[in-house]
């Protein structure tokens, strides 16, 4: 049996289409079988509500008198991109305020507009013959804008890898707070309710298809940026009218230590035309697998700790290395369900019909990493190769002498095999002199926990270590943990007048 899109739209029009959410579908298929479910169900609604950084919107402010060709635009002190026609601008959700940093950003401007609050527009221009005005400041409500069109380049990620942290310190990431030593796992995504997970072949999700966006009727523009559907990480570009949105489904947020982002509610109805659709919309949380990625490793290709599915993630705890670990989602399943429910209501009531894509999204696409033609500096290039070390069994007096002679504040401590076992600083030595207890050797005062770098580590990462641990030097070690150099804050000065330091 097969159904056509017209048959389904006719039923929607007549008010007797059978619409279910993606969460209800597995049970229906289990009960009625695939053919039975096909006969029974006309539309499956999906929904997701989570942080979607790649979001924003176009505004048209209308012309002032005398007119201005806005070159730079700020909305509540958040800069919007104005490299467009005179009174158009695009505000990105993650752009941060020039005055309130990560406590207010583009997402907050959008939320404030939608909430009906007044937003201050400031713009400057160099002035032209046709647009003589140079500055403008005015307070605007959403209703004062000609258009406020949300246009999100990347929304609705099909699934998202979970995050954990192998290091011994807390990490603040866009995946939230990651506790040390795999202390927790965070994840994002609605699992079986996710739109693309219900149509991974993009047979029904594509250009021109209607969707729920932020509480308004929106539309799928097409493939989202960085889409990698061949690897199971499809994304969508979507649009909708901000004037019809609702702050229940658009929420500004701040990821501590990371920055501003926007929580977006997105849902797509999927017409059930054939058995293949029945199968794809019967997807369960157990079927959707993701990796747990170790965010403790600051590289693009971070190591994977293990594989989990959304059922395991939603259960609230997992096992890592035999230990029970709590999970936290960053997206909201409760609100994702509300999106799917509301969308279901729209279709049942005939407010929204379904259609086929006018242009299909290529399910075979894979995102590539950046081609880098200029490699960033590595520790090797700026480290100090004259390393003065001390052995752990030498007297503290010798350490003091070496520190003085070497004009350095840090002495790496090595054992008999030349392996790094600790570090002493001028401060440690002075302290030992002031409190002359029984201690007399370097090994009594050295710090055994040493933060190190390697010669081929990017300087940016080494700098991050210095900042994070609030230290001023890092021993550079080789594979055998022997000291081959030192990287100090001073060495960083060698790079373009210290641009690498904040």
């Amino acid at each position, binding site marked *: 049996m097969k159904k056509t899109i017209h048959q389904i739209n006719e039923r929607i029009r007549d008010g007797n289409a059978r619409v279910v959410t993606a969460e209800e579908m597995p049970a229906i298929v289990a009960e009625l079988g695939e053919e039975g479910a096909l006969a029974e169900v006309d539309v499956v609604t999906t929904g997701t509500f989570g942080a979607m950084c790649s979001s924003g919107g176009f505004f048209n402010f209308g012309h002032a008198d005398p007119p201005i060709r806005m070159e730079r635009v700020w909305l509540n002190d958040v800069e919007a991109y104005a490299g467009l026609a005179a009174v158009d601008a695009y505000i990105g959700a993650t752009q941060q305020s020039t005055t309130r940093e990560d406590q207010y950003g583009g997402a907050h401007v959008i939320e404030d507009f939608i909430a009906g609050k007044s937003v201050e527009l400031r713009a400057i221009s160099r002035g032209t013959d046709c647009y003589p005005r140079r500055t403008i400041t005015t307070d605007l409500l959403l209703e004062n804008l000609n258009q406020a069109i949300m246009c999100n380049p990347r929304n609705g990620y099909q699934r998202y890898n979970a995050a954990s942290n192998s290091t011994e310190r807390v990490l603040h990431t866009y995946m939230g707070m990651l506790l040390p030593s795999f202390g927790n796992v965070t994840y994002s995504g609605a699992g079986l309710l996710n739109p693309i997970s219900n149509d991974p072949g993009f047979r029904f999700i594509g250009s021109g298809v209607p969707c729920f966006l932020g509480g308004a009727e929106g539309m799928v523009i097409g493939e989202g940026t960085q889409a990698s559907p061949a690897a199971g990480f499809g994304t969508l570009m979507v649009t909708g009218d901000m004037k019809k949105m609702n702050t229940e489904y658009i929420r500004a*947020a701040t990821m*501590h230590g990371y920055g501003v982002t926007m929580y977006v509610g997105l849902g797509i109805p999927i017409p059930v035309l054939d058995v293949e659709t029945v199968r794809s919309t019967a997807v369960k949380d157990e079927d959707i697998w993701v990796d747990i990625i170790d965010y403790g490793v600051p590289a693009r290709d971070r190591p994977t700790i293990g594989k989990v599915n959304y059922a395991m993630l939603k259960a*609230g705890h997992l096992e890592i290395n035999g230990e029970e670990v*709590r999970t*936290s*989602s*960053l997206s909201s399943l*409760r*609100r994702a369900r509300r999106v799917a429910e509301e969308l279901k209501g729209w279709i049942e009531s005939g407010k929204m019909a379904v259609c086929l894509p006018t242009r299909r999204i290529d399910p075979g696409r894979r995102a590539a990493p950046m081609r880098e033609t200029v490699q960033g500096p590595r520790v090797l290039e700026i480290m100090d190769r004259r390393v003065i070390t001390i052995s752990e069994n030498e007297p503290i007096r010798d350490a003091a002498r070496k520190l003085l002679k070497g004009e350095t504040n840090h002495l790496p401590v090595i054992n008999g095999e030349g392996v790094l076992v600790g570090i002493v600083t001028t401060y440690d030595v002075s302290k030992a002199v002031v409190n002359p207890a029984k201690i007399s050797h370097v090994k009594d005062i050295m710090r055994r926990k040493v933060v190190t770098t390697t010669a081929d580590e990017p300087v940016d990462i080494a700098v991050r270590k210095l900042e994070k641990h609030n230290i001023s030097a890092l021993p550079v070690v080789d594979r055998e943990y022997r000291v081959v150099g030192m990287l100090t804050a001073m060495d960083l000065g060698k790079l373009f007048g210290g641009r690498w330091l904040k």
Partner: protein
Amino acid sequence: MKLLVTFSRKEGKKPIIAQVVRDTGVLVNVERALIDSSEGEALIDIPDESCRIVKDKLADLGASVRILEEEISLDETECVDCGACISICPQEVFSFDEEFRLRMDAKRCVLCGRCIEICPHGALSRRVDI
């Protein structure tokens, strides 16, 4: 009931909480303590009926005491039930109910402040009454 105790350590390093336990016989649960060389702050949990006696004893020992009425408060209009707070709370104050709505067991909170800092929606705050 929770008491926030602050004391200076000028008069030697007296084990002030231990002394209270010894002298009053009340079992004190230390939920959080921050002590450096000159000052200390501790959050302790005691049975309600022992409040008076413990407070008086602490005052005798030179500490100042505040009763914490409210631990952590959730602004339901801001909360989106994401659950980011769940796994980071050392006291397991947060969990989801069957409907994936955030549930709080505020009595367990020790006011470490972690969830306030990380809630993406600014929905959590400290509401301290005397």
